[in-house]
């Protein structure tokens, strides 16, 4: 079909026929990237989204890494609610998980900065510091040849962030808010990451369950061609909540 007169036909970019180098590294957005949009679309009551995380006693590093991401994401929720005590609680949880993971040395300065910034109600600094904390932990893990654990940190954070988003969207449903869940590339990334892990990690009960859950979430996202329904949002929320609950349920 000819382009309309007076306009130049523009050839669409086809990523599958890209002649250059594809950079596989995926930068997972921090929860506050999504939260900031929700704030622009209304005034969610973030205080209702804060929850206390019961950190189980565990020496399972996969679980601890997932929990670490979860707790950092919880910190982002607390910042959004501008709740000093909840931020400090997340900061203290970060310290105890870092100790359990043997990463105190690299994490303590960040955790202290979070606690100090909470005293000053410096929300911008706290957001930055939570992002730094997560990055430091992931980089340190990668340096220790624990790249799989580093991915678990991102995964735990994404699950908690997405659970909060679905909760806020459900309370005041709109197409614009629900569209924030259109994140199939990130879900595919996590599924592929788990798939590439060594069998011993991939077959971990939690990761097997998370992979199944992510498949279900991906199906919901991919079928939302005409936008997300309330039911789809609720389903994604239920799946994320169930997985988070499995992460926090300690096995003796």
């Amino acid at each position, binding site marked *: 079909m000819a382009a309309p007169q007076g306009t130049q036909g523009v050839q669409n*970019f086809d990523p599958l026929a890209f002649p250059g180098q594809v950079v596989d590294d995926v*930068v997972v957005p921090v929860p506050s990237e999504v939260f900031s949009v929700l704030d622009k679309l209304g005034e969610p009551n973030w205080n209702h989204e804060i929850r206390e995380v019961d950190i189980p006693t565990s020496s399972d590093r996969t679980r601890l890494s997932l929990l670490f991401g979860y707790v950092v994401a919880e910190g982002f929720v607390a910042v959004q609610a501008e709740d000093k005590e909840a931020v400090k609680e997340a900061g203290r949880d970060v310290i105890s998980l870092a100790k359990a993971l043997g990463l105190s040395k690299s994490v303590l300065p960040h955790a202290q900065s979070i606690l100090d910034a909470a005293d000053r109600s410096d929300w911008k600094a706290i957001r930055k510091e939570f992002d730094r904390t*997560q990055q430091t932990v992931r980089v340190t893990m990668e340096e220790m040849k624990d790249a799989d654990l580093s991915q678990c940190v991102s995964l735990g954070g994404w699950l908690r962030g997405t659970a909060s988003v679905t909760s806020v969207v459900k309370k005041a449903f709109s197409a614009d808010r629900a569209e924030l869940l259109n994140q199939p590339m990130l879900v595919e990334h996590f599924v592929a990451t788990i798939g590439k892990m060594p069998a011993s990690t991939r077959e971990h009960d939690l990761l097997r369950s998370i992979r199944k859950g992510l498949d279900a979430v991906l199906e919901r996202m991919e079928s939302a061609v005409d936008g997300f329904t309330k039911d789809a949002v609720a389903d994604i929320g239920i799946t994320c909540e169930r997985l988070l609950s499995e992460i926090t349920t300690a096995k003796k």
Partner: protein
Amino acid sequence: MNSPWNFRWIPVRPIVFTSFLLAVWTSPLRATVDESHDYCMEAATPFVEQGFIVREDYWNGEVKSGQKLMISHQLFKGNEYAFWLGSASSGVQMDIKVFDEKGQPLSMDKKTQEHFMSVRVNPPKTGTYKIVFELKSKDSTESVLWALSYGYR
């Protein structure tokens, strides 16, 4: 007494020398990788003053001059994004384009300076976007070190 010492010196010296060479050779390279990110942060400074939040995670690497690179990235409608591409090499020409899921280019505000460029985009939809960029050095056979950071508000 001399014999054992001489015997020891022969194998040890090349290792020490190689380590020294490696240290000398890799130190500037490392510095350059970090420098590319430093330029990104320099590019980001005026954006921070305008309320952008800079992410700590970023992409970096080394690429043949003129070779295009593509990154897939999640963007959320309602946020404004800025991407900062930096290179420690001098005289590098840079370009960034951002495409939506249908392969349509997004309109954006670009600014280029020596060592870095910045672009701002307002994604029309929430979803996966392709960031395509290239760096061309004066010497086309040279490889270029790069870093790409982003922020949002």
